[in-house]
């Protein structure tokens, strides 16, 4: 069965600190996709990144970076020099292709609070 674990329920940091959000997944598929979404207080889930199972290169986008390691089934997300606007719930998700296109499994989310 597929599963996504985000062990950190809540994290609080002070502005400008670096913070890493952990994501560990389980799947027996050889082809799959991993995602991170941000849910600010407004409620909408905002897509951040998509990574397929054959691409283990780390990715950096501004203050955001992602570390994908198949050997440990992890897809961790780091925010460098955090800002108050980064306060949100962050979800890691796993998808695989099925007959209909995809099936998503979401982790429980990590609530990040960045204090001024």
């Amino acid at each position, binding site marked *: 069965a597929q599963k996504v674990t985000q062990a950190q329920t809540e994290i609080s940091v002070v502005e400008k600190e670096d913070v890493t959000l952990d994501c560990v997944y389980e799947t027996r598929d050889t082809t799959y*996709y991993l*995602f991170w*979404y941000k849910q600010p207080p*407004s*409620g*909408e*889930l*905002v*897509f951040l990144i*998509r990574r397929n199972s054959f691409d283990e290169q780390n990715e950096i986008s501004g203050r955001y970076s992602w570390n994908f390691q198949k050997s440990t089934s992890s897809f961790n997300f780091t925010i460098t020099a955090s800002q108050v606007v980064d306060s949100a719930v962050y*979800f890691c998700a796993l*998808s695989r*292709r099925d007959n*209909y*296109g*995809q099936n*998503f499994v*979401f*982790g*429980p*989310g990590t609530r990040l609070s960045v204090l001024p």
Partner: protein
Amino acid sequence: DVKVTQSSRYLVKRTGEKVFLECVQDMDHENMFWYRQDPGLGLRLIYFSYDVKMKEKGDIPEGYSVSREKKERFSLILESASTNQTSMYLCASSSRLAGGDTQYFGPGTRLTVL
């Protein structure tokens, strides 16, 4: 830019009422989804649709039905609302083409059933 809109941000209904939640996407996506989000339970899939007039049950379909008469519109129906259906409802869409998979979400509808 992908745009998914939901008919209401906040909705208050009474027990036993029939409730319609509407979702519209403007990206010609084949797949559309309805989730509910509850504290401590995360996002749970209610129904999804991979084509017009097609629907598939997700993890928690009981008490819900859906309708997809047009490609851009996916409706969630609560036939007889109950208090345990008080929740945040999120609609999403995605493309089935190569490079698809990414689900794009609407702003959510916070439903309260009294």
